[in-house]
């Protein structure tokens, strides 16, 4: 009993923290800084409690006498939880200055972040479709509200509205898919579905396939795959910086938690059917995302477009899973980690700069940035290199594993296309580096204080490099090889 409580403690801490912040926000005496500290405290506590569980290799169902097999705890979900909490902590800490500079933030903001983290954690742990749906909606609803947080800004409101309408529709798809599957299987627990599929004939599993496709559409929508991508650029653009950062880095990861659990384990016997569909979607996503990214002037929109391309890379690996690649699932996990590090860093720098001005940041604003702020420019360059998959960064290894898995499963052309879009991505990422380094600056050098945000961003930059070339020789710190081992271990716990 007590042991079980300890295992769900990280989730509990997060949700308790959320309620606590809600109550706290009644009181007008507290400043944003206090709320921020409280939120970070709860998240940090959750992270610290959860971290030792990473070495736990058992699979445990929580309170089986009440919930059955609905709620699972394994290495896989623990790793995802850690990424969520770390992502939220970084988002909150890096944006400290941004909160201060905007007057529309208040205590509820932090509560919403914690609620959404709780939703994502539950999503990673859910072993049953209805639980997954509820978790997804908890997370999504919080993010809808966050996206429209700048109430008086037309763009922000528009972003929230679009996101909510489209998101609700896909939420309906998810529950419809669940209903169809329930109709065929008579249960919504993933284990039962897997058993059913293994024994069912082709015609019997048709309903499951239809339901699975609906769920697939929901997932594709949330990760922004073409043709379900149209919201991405507008919403990323309209949402306040901290929210965009949170969505692009953390929320996106959450969807892969449920996608991997579903397609790696439960739909495994029939996911070969989706492989060809996914290949089509992948091609569309890679090319469409590149087109979107290449023609943007606004940096937020460019990163939004490029985040679609990154989803495309992970889709390559998902279809590789269907075609029997062993390396594909760890490759996705690794890619998620690498994308997480690089995009948190890149968005972090943008919001760090945005907190000091009200302008929309375009490429032109970065002209001669290296002269104004050499350290930040260097870090930005590192993140851009990593996002484009430049060797010696973690982004390179991420793409390397993805392409290896694609080649292993015989999808040579898809790997080729991936490499081509990686080349294209060099254009829009290096454009920023070129702007920063090869143009004279219009403005004189300003003294920015180097504070906690700067230190954290610097830490991310070091991690990006370390993940690319780090050696495993230093005890207790995983090197570049260590990260993929962690990913492999996590995926192993699924099977």
């Amino acid at each position, binding site marked *: 009993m007590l042991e079980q409580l300890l295992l769900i403690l990280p989730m509990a801490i997060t949700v308790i923290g959320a309620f606590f912040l809600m109550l706290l926000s009644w009181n007008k005496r507290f400043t944003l800084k206090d709320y921020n500290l409280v939120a970070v405290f709860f998240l940090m506590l959750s992270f610290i409690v959860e971290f030792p569980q990473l070495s736990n290799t058992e699979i445990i169902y929580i309170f089986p006498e009440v919930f059955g097999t609905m709620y699972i705890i394994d290495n896989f979900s623990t790793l995802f939880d850690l990424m969520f909490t770390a992502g939220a902590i970084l988002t909150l800490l890096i944006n400290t200055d941004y909160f201060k500079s905007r007057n529309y933030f208040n205590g509820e903001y932090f509560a919403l972040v914690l609620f959404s983290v709780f939703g994502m954690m539950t999503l990673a742990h859910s072993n049953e479709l209805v639980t997954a749906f509820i978790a997804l909606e908890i997370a999504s609803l919080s993010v809808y509200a966050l996206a429209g947080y700048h109430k008086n800004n037309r763009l922000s409101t528009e972003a929230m*509205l*679009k996101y909510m*309408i*489209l998101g609700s*529709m*896909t939420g309906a*798809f998810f529950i419809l898919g669940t209903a169809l599957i329930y109709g065929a299987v008579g249960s919504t627990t993933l284990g039962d579905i897997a058993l059913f599929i293994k024994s069912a004939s*082709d*015609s019997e*599993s*048709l309903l499951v*396939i*239809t339901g*699975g*496709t*609906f769920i*697939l*559409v929901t997932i*594709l*929508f949330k990760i922004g795959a073409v*043709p*379900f991508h*149209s*919201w991405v*650029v*507008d919403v990323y653009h309209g949402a306040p910086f901290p929210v965009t950062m949170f969505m692009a880095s953390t929320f996106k990861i959450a969807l892969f938690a449920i996608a991997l659990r579903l397609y790696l384990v439960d739909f495994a016997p*029939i996911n070969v*059917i*989706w492989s*060809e*569909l996914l290949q*089509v*979607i992948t091609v569309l996503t890679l090319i*469409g995302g*590149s*087109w*979107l990214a*290449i*023609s943007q002037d606004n940096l937020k929109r460019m990163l939004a477009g490029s985040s679609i391309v990154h989803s495309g890379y992970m889709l390559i690996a998902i279809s590789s899973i269907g075609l029997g690649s062993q390396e594909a699932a760890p490759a996705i996990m690794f890619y998620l980690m690498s994308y997480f590090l690089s995009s948190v860093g890149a968005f972090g720098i943008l919001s760090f700069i945005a907190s000091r001005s009200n302008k929309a940041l375009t490429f032109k604003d970065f002209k001669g940035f290296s002269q104004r702020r050499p350290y930040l420019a260097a870090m930005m360059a590192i993140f851009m290199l990593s996002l484009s998959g430049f060797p010696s960064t973690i982004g390179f290894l991420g793409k390397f594993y993805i392409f290896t898995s694609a080649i292993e499963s015989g999808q040579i052309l898809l790997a080729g296309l991936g490499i081509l879009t990686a080349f*294209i991505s060099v*254009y829009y990422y290096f454009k920023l580096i070129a702007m920063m380094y090869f143009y004279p600056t219009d403005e004189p050098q300003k003294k920015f204080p180097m504070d906690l945000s700067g230190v954290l961003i610097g830490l991310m930059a070091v991690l990006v490099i370390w993940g690319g070339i780090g050696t495993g*020789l230093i005890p207790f710190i995983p090197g570049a090889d260590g990260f993929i081992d962690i990913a492999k271990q996590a995926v192993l716990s699924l099977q």
Partner: protein
Amino acid sequence: METYLYIALFAPLVGSLFAGLFGARPKTIIAGLVPTGLLFASLVSSTILLTHVLAGNTVHVELMTWMETGDLYIPFGFVVDQVSVTMMMVVTIVSTVVHVYSIGYMDHDKGFNRFFSYLSAFVFSMMVLVMSDNFAGLFIGWEGVGLCSWLLIGFWYHKESATWAANEAFIMNRIADLGMLIGIFLIYWNTGSLQYDQVFAAVAGLEISTVVWIGIFLFIGAMGKSAQFPLHTWLADAMEGPTPVSALIHAATMVTAGVYLVVRANPIYDIIPEVGTVIASLGAFVAMFAASMALVNRDMKRIIAYSTLSQLGYMFVAAGLGAYWVALFHLMAHAFFKALLFLGAGNVMHAMSDELDPFKMGGLSKKMKGTFIMMTVASVALAGIYPLAGFFSKDMILEVAFVEHHYILYTVLLLTAGLTAFYSFRLIALIFHGEERYKLFGFDPHEAYKYMLWFMAPLAVLAVIAGMMFKGTYYDMVTQLLPAGEYHVHSAFTYWVMTIGTQIFVGLAIVYAYRKYENAKIDKKVESGFFYQLLFNQYYIPQFYEEFFVKPYRDLSMIFWKHIDLKVVDATVDMIGNTFYKTGKETHVMQNGNLSTMLRWMVAGLVFLLVSAIVFAKANDIFAYMVTIVPGLGA
């Protein structure tokens, strides 16, 4: 003992990084003192290791695995044995002296901190080179010293000639390194290992032709680093670097790496004496060839550089003839007196505001007594006068050639010994004796800092005693690893005739040089002669290279640039980029931000996916159905 090994190896690296921290800042004396102190620690550790080795032990450590894939296993392994400890001592002694000297020499230089960072990095690379227990580690050190040499030759990068010389040295060495790499690959393919002990054990079982190729390619690498003909031109040009660099890198340590390689690979060269003979012949040729150029040159540093080249030739003669320990012994002795000579030249340069032409000096012995004494000692040692170091090491090489019945080599080397004595004392006479010509040019010479002279003193002492005191001990130590060979002429009579004859010959050359150049009279008739011009223009070899290699290559590159790169490669890349960019701009319309459009796209996507999923899932059923109905249609 392993601790001392790590200190000896890594202390210079720490020093380099430390000085590198101050790289972009104005001069701080700490950036010079700390690397020097660390280097001294390295010297002390090396000395402790030397006593350990003298007691008959060796140290061998494996720091960590570097590469391990399939059959390939390369560790970061280091070995301190009789050969490497010799090199370690040479490197640490000379570089400690040079570091202290540089604190004074680079006193007024803006790049003071940067200089020490590079210099210590060089020492670290050199230590890796000599201490590695495998060819891969040797190659890392080899490239490391090449890089540091490039950085240091081009240290004054705002001088066009310096950057040019740095690039020349680097490119020449790349050509040779390719040969070396091929040699290392051949070794790996044929023996399956790169560890010295395993390779040398396996090499005896290989076909003789393979070993010949290995020997040749490794020697090509050695030729580049040790500036042997025809890759010799870079060494004289490398004198563009600061003088302490010339003393450390281009006289005492890096250029001897080629000799070290041949000595280290002695089990390979023992199997192929023919290649050894070629090496020895080339060495003798270079000895004479370089000495002849030194006879007429009017640049103080270049004269010493040619002398280095010539002495390297001597070492290769010994190594080629199988007298590896003699080669190594001469390497050591030469390092001491040649570094001393260079540092003395540095003092003179400082005194004369960087003037290099000895004809503009003269009579400096009065103003610069310390430097005068030390440079004279170094020159006497270089000329091989008893009882200084050169006598024991250089004359030994003559004896080797004689005992091995290579009389032509012996004659060449003997003549070269005379030339060496001549040009060395031509330089001394021009700089320190005769009239004080510098007054005409308005120079005001002054002696270097006291501490610089004091720290040069150990080198002077070593140049005097290294041969006399250490030869016996050294022989006992190093022949535990290298093939022994006493190389004594059989009859005592011949021995005495040879020795005394050589001494008299060399002595006469010195006297002749003094008489001729004490008053710096320039003989116009000789100067306009064909031989003088030939020697003065370095046999027109640089011009030859420029005309037949550099220019055609440049022309070819221009053609490739203008016709292939611009018209084919760039055009293709631009075309791909433009096409993609334009399509991106055009499809932008799809993304019009209209919510209805978005919903339409989503529904279209959903329908597409659903239909396809069902069709795929039912494909088998449909196919089976078709199979049943199609024959019916046909019939």
